[in-house]
């Protein structure tokens, strides 16, 4: 086995390794990330291995084996890696090889050799084999042997799990350059687009997969990402949506063939039912109806049926609602309001479902952009986000020595104070007695940080006051005044359109700022008529601040600074 490659010899890719699907991606010469199709043409490669007479199948071919060869087919194993048997959930493996306890780890009993003997294969070994297949597919595509990768993992992947994955990858000849969090990879994939602009925003990544759904609330500040909260749900995911369709078609089948039996009660029938239901589900993400067709579904009876999207959405409405609740719950855990969320990035295969995106859009304010294929024409493929993000990161660090990468990702580097409140200036609006806070630096921005703003001045110029403060975002709720009955006048035709909005008298929620703490005051004198003022704020790593104000295009300016807050005993706040 090759040891760590020196950076010069590295061929690095990005790998997204899910319980259900895996993807591989590389960056092209121009730095564009691209997901690689394997030899079967799949970009979403089922994370499944199957053994038939000693021959190994992976991906879609292995998945097909779930029908006839389920005992020698291993699926849904990623989350078992690095865990003891006690803490794993074997539920997803019900229709494939069952996990068993093996020493302190998890293993599968499968006939993986031509001899047909039942071998105990650890989850680590299974993972190695899976990664080797991924590596080979990538190498075939790139024309050179891949030997390194950035791999995405869930935000709650433990050190033990990462360690196990590192080893499993190494055994497959892949050096793990870095693990990056799946939701962060998704944000990076979006931010790496040429048209993307660096901005301060709160991004929610809803990664809706096969057997788990994960939501992360991320503060994106000047291109740096900090996770504020996460929520995980192992009870809602693509599998539950498959189940809805399985139940539906099983009932249809029973209705049609009274003597056919319940296809859910026979292992093979169940496997067929599941595979086709998943296919129907995917088809319903694009089309308004889909065909279900299985030869010899149960008792030798073929079955075909169709379902339209409306019906499906009705059947699955509870599960769709659960995704929305999960996202809202994560925002709540971050102690934020939906109004704080600028973007929701929908990631994971299940995120293709149009209804999930529209439900999220209606649960969040209009100011929140939902990035999903069905809500945004510029959205990236949700199934590809993690792998693309990993590939971009791989391209950024593949030149680095391993030691260098380790040091750069060290907590001494990553652990950083984040501002408790926004820092901004007080402006005038309407009533000149009460100022309006405008942020320059948002809360949860890591320090050190520098931000500047260009601010208008009173019409006549003259002397102005620059008051620098900390501001706290508040939510202002206004109950709508009972609408006066629209008097019959001019635009009568418009009234019809307004009818629906009139029914729900929803309260209006808005963001507003409260000044928490005045930090400094500065004066700029003798400004020209129509002048603009530039305010620059530099917050140092120790929370001391320097600030500089000047007339745009003018000479001189005012400079000042103030000290850091006193340290708190034992550091806790």
């Amino acid at each position: 086995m090759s040891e760590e490659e020196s950076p010069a010899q590295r061929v690095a890719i990005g790998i997204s390794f899910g319980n259900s699907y895996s993807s591989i991606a590389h960056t092209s010469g121009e730095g564009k990330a691209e997901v690689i199709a394997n030899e079967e043409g799949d970009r979403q490669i089922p994370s499944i291995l199957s053994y038939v007479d000693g021959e190994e199948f992976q991906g879609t071919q292995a998945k097909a084996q779930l029908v006839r060869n389920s005992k020698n087919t291993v699926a849904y194993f990623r989350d078992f890696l690095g865990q003891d048997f006690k803490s794993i959930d074997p539920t997803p493996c019900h229709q494939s090889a069952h996990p068993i306890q093996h020493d302190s780890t998890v293993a599968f009993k499968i006939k993986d050799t031509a001899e047909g003997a039942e071998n105990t294969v650890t989850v680590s070994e299974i993972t190695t084999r899976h990664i080797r297949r991924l590596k080979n597919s990538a190498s075939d595509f790139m024309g050179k042997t891949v030997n390194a990768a950035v791999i995405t993992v869930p935000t709650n992947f433990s050190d033990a799990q990462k360690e196990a994955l590192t080893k499993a990858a190494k055994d497959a000849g892949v050096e793990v350059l870095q693990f990056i969090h799946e939701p962060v990879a998704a944000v990076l994939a979006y931010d790496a687009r040429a048209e993307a602009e660096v901005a301060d925003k709160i991004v929610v990544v809803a990664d809706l997969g096969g057997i788990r759904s994960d939501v992360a609330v991320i503060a994106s500040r000047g291109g740096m990402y900090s996770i504020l909260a996460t929520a995980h749900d192992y009870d809602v995911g693509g599998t539950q949506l498959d189940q809805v369709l399985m139940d539906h078609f099983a009932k249809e089948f029973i209705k049609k063939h009274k003597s056919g039996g319940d296809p859910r009660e026979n292992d093979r029938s169940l496997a067929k039912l599941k595979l086709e239901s998943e296919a129907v589900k995917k088809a319903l993400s694009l089309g308004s109806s889909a065909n279900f067709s299985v030869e010899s579904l149960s008792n030798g009876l073929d079955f075909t049926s169709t379902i339209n999207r409306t019906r499906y959405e009705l059947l699955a409405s509870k599960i769709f609602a659960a995704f929305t609740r999960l996202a809202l719950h994560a925002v709540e855990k971050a102690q934020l309001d939906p109004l704080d969320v600028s973007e929701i990035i929908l990631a994971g295969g299940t995120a293709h479902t149009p209804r999930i995106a529209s439900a999220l859009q209606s649960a969040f304010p209009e100011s929140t952009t939902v990035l999903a294929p069905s809500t945004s024409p510029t959205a990236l493929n949700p199934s590809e986000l993690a792998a693309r993000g990993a590939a971009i990161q791989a391209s950024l660090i593949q030149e680095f020595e391993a030691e260098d990468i380790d040091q750069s990702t060290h907590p001494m580097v990553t652990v950083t104070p984040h501002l408790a409140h926004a820092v901004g200036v007080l402006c005038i609006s309407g009533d000149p007695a009460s100022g309006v806070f405008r942020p320059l630096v948002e809360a949860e921005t890591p320090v050190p940080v520098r931000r500047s703003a260009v601010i208008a001045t009173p019409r006549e110029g003259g002397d102005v006051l620059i008051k620098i403060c900390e501001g706290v975002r508040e939510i202002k709720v206004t109950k709508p005044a009972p609408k006066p009955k629209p008097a019959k006048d001019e635009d009568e035709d418009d009234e019809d359109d307004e009818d629906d909005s009139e029914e729900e008298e929803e309260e209006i929620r808005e963001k507003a700022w409260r000044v928490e703490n005045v930090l400094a005051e500065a004066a700029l004198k003798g400004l020209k008529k129509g002048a603009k003022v530039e305010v620059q704020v530099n917050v140092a790593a120790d929370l001391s601040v320097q600030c500089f104000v000047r007339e745009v295009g003018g000479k001189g300016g005012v400079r000042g600074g103030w000290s850091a807050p006193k340290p708190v005993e034992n550091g806790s706040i």
Partner: protein
Amino acid sequence: MAAVQISLPLPVLPEGWAAEKDFKAVGQLTHATDRNIEPVGPHFLAHARRKRHKRTFSEDDRIQAQVNVKKVEDEDAGEISEPEDPLMLQRDAKDWKGQDHYAVLGLSKYRYRATEDQIKRAHRKKVLKHHPDKKAAAGSTEDDSFFKCIQKATEVLLDPVKRRQFDSVDEGADVEPPTKKETQKGNFYKLWGRVFESEGRFSKIQPVPKLGNDKSTKEEVEHFYNFWYNFDSWRTFEYQDEDVPDDNENRDQKRHVERKNQNARRKKKTEDTARLRRLVDDALALDERIKKFRQQEHAQKNKKRLEKEAETKRLAEEAARAREEEARLQAEKEAAERAEKAEGKKAKEAAKNAAKKNKRVVRGSVKEANYFHVGGDAPAAQIDSALNIVDLIITKIDNEELAALTAQLNGKKDAGVIKQIFASEVKKLVEAGKLKESEAKSLLA
């Protein structure tokens, strides 16, 4: 990053604002929160370059740096689990309606208070422990019955509608009201507070007012009982429905069972409303505060009545006193008047007598002055004329003047002097216009 553009104008510098070099520091930033920046992306790499400065960090540094980092992943839901009753583990999932879903998930302490998150985490813990595949691997022959119980419990508790139906009849969350005896041992607020807290879970209106304590105000207590007497409950009883036969064969029977269920639900709901009303009645009857407030009110009323009575009495007494005083003054006045009258008579009499005496003196002094006749006995005409004049004078002067005149004349023997005195008296009267000079010319001659 590009500068933010802000279109709202800056405020005008207030009159009298001054600072050295036009800048003054006022405060300091609030303490920051330690978080991990994700070591991802080009901007992070720039950050890392700045922060590392070619330094090398150790394992110790790693631990040190992470001490205060804000956690974003939940801790293991360890606190949720509770001991599992061996009898419960043998339950048959077919009888899922009879199972205590909260106990199955180890959430007996929480019940209707358990959050969705808690339920999910509890479920996961139980799945990890009781998954049949794991049991089989451990060589246990136990069937997957309890696992099915777990799945059923989760299904019910994660479905808001089903959960309400179960919570409606969750006896585990019921708190029996204390008896009268128990209550009277004291502890009314603690014992009944728990009862109302548990009953409050059925309220459509949340939050539910609390029972409070002996320091609660009358308004609070009144609000509390008003709330409970107008309780709006979401409690339903379909969970206790008899199973409706699922086959289409016997539609009449199906309808019959459905009707029966409807009636049973209605009946139970009515009974529940009555039960709650009785419960509130009982609490109200035992609530010392009600008595206290009534007594206070009573005392208040009594106090008012007594005050009123005292006031009337006082007013009556005052009036009586006033009347007496008036009578006394009247009597005094009358007495004085009478005395005065009597006095006046005497004085008049005395004056009359004095005047008589004085007149005699005056008349006598005329005689003394020989009737103003010079030399020898006065002729009769002279006597008459002198006496006439003197009488005339007397009629023209009052008693006092008479007394004064008398005093002047008293003891005077000299006729000239006497005449002189009379003459000046006449003169006075003439000047006063009471007498004509002609009438007394003999005196003035």
